[in-house]
């Protein structure tokens, strides 16, 4: 076995006579940190304020969800998937349900498909809103834009609580449909929330889009080229900010996304400002999709009445199912051996893989930029460490 290496042997700069100039400072932007979006540690080596080396350290929230998934039944894993990317529990549930439906060949009724799209787009809205709030807070706007973002996010979380019982850990999707049907009152309230969201976004954009401090700190910082992004398996808004047109809602056309008209916003250079603007524009597109879905939702059942909850045993085989979660491509790879629990249960986490190029983006920049760059990658530790 390869022994654990002692990392970060970095040689300091030498002048002509061979004596080291100054000293390199190794700091650990450690797991307890107000701005690292969770228990995430980066071992940073600094020359003054410039980053010379950066190694991320993972594993502070590792709960070995994949092994738990191998020991409990398929239905019982559903509440655990809520806790992967704890901001976006509805899309996690949908990715898992989609994978199992692909494995077992289950059909989903149409009303359930519309409800799933509505929940996913609401999730995207509240995720991008709170992310922009965090992003601006990392830059120093201590809390005010974040509080406005959270005020709007609470309206969406209230909707989730009314329909599924919990604000964040919804446990709402089932194999072959959703758990409970939406009432007309809920749909009316959703229409109102979505209608008001456009006004809030206008106010928010006036607040932030051309703010000189934001422009100075984000334009030209940490650009990512198309080839770098594709080769490093980056997905989600980061990839689209770099200019690559790859959105799984348009490529795979899972669910009923082919019925809705929406555009995919693309950036040019992949720097932080492009990532911020791609997210803002994606929120506008989500509002468009929501309006179309709420207008066109049909009546009908939301779950096959003969589907059984307990004792679900799909046939042996393997499948890889993926969806476009707000953070990127969330995939589930499941090998089934015909028993009540999967043989291998693997989650492809977007936040984890998007961190591959963190070091490259931060080299040569200042310490203050490291925080903002990490904020723009949009990680959630529940997903990174599982």
């Amino acid at each position, binding site marked *: *076995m*390869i022994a*654990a*290496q002692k*990392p970060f042997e970095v040689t300091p700069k030498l002048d002509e006579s061979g004596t080291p100039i100054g000293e390199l400072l190794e700091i650990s932007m450690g797991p307890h940190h107000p701005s690292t979006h969770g228990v995430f540690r980066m071992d940073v080596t600094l020359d003054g304020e410039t980053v010379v080396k950066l190694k991320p350290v*993972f*594993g502070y929230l*590792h709960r*070995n969800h*994949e*092994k738990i998934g191998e020991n409990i039944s398929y239905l019982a894993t559903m509440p655990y998937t809520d806790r992967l990317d704890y901001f976006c529990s509805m899309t996690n549930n949908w990715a898992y349900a989609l994978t199992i439906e*692909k*494995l*077992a*060949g289950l059909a989903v009724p149409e009303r359930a498909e519309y409800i799933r799209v509505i929940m996913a787009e609401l999730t995207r809205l509240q995720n991008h809103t709170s992310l922009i709030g965090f992003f601006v807070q990392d830059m120093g706007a201590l809390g005010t834009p974040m509080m406005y973002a959270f005020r709007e996010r609470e309206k969406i979380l209230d909707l989730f609580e009314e329909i599924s019982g919990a604000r964040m850990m919804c446990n709402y999707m089932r194999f072959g449909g959703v758990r409970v049907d939406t009432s007309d009152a809920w749909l009316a309230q959703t229409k109102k929330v979505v209608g008001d969201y456009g006004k809030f976004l206008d106010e928010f954009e006036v607040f932030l889009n051309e703010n000189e401090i934001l422009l100075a700190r984000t334009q030209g910082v940490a650009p990512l080229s198309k080839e770098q992004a*594709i*080769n*490093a*398996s*980056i997905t989600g808004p980061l990839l689209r900010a770099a200019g*690559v047109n*790859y959105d799984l809602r348009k*490529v795979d056309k899972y669910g009923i996304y082919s019925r809705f008209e929406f555009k995919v916003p693309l950036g040019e250079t992949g720097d932080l400002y492009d990532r911020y603007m791609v997210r803002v524009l994606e929120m506008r597109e989500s509002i468009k999709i929501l309006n179309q879905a709420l207008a066109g939702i049909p009546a009908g059942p939301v779950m096959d009445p003969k589907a059984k909850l307990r004792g679900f045993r*799909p*046939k*042996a*085989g*393997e*499948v*890889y199912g*993926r969806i476009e979660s707000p953070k990127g*491509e969330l*995939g589930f*790879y499941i*090998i*089934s051996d015909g028993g009540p629990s999967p*043989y*291998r249960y*693997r989650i*492809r986490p977007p936040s*984890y*893989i998007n*961190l*591959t*190029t963190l070091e490259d983006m931060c080299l040569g920049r200042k310490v203050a930029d490291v925080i903002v760059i990490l904020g723009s990658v949009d990680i959630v530790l529940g997903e990174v*460490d599982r």
Partner: protein
Amino acid sequence: METLEQIKSRLEAALPSAKIEILANECAAGERSLLVDAASGLAAAKFLRDDAQLKLDYCSNVTGVDWPDKEISEKIKVKQVVDGVEKEVEEVKKTLRPGYLEVVFHLYSMTLKHGPVVLRMRTENRADQTHLPSLTPLWRGAELQEREIYDLYGVIFDGHPDLRRILMWDGFEGYPMRKDYVAPEDYEYEPTPHDEVLEAAKKCYPAEPKVEVKP
């Protein structure tokens, strides 16, 4: 995208020494996979990435799977002499299929928007010959995922730029995701009501002192 058989024949034409197999997949909508031997894994992956018709430039998912030793029993007919008469008797023959660790790659193409092509590589056994070529020089996105497979399964990737433990702490012994891994008992247990958990918790806490009840 072309079928798996066509891809296999072109791969075999390009790399004559490779041993490639197509594995079936019985479930409803699953994809079949290409099994490549470890020696020609890197060359096969490079062909898949650079080929003009495939252009599989996006490595979406790298998974490790543990297949322990399995005893396969099959019924075979054997000629035996029973009571002086030669008859055909059914016997159960047990063969041991040796265990191995497996790594599965899901490859897609972002330029041509097709996929997936599933690539698999297997190690020789689970004990000492657990080396596989690393595909990180081709797809940088496999770097962190291969580190995780090394950490949790014990597959050593030759050619990986920085292979060390990622999710478990440095100095951890063992490979947690293997099927025969037993978690040690010396973690802090909270005695929840179930029997085995209570028994395990009793071992970890000091014995309750006997209280002398004075009459």
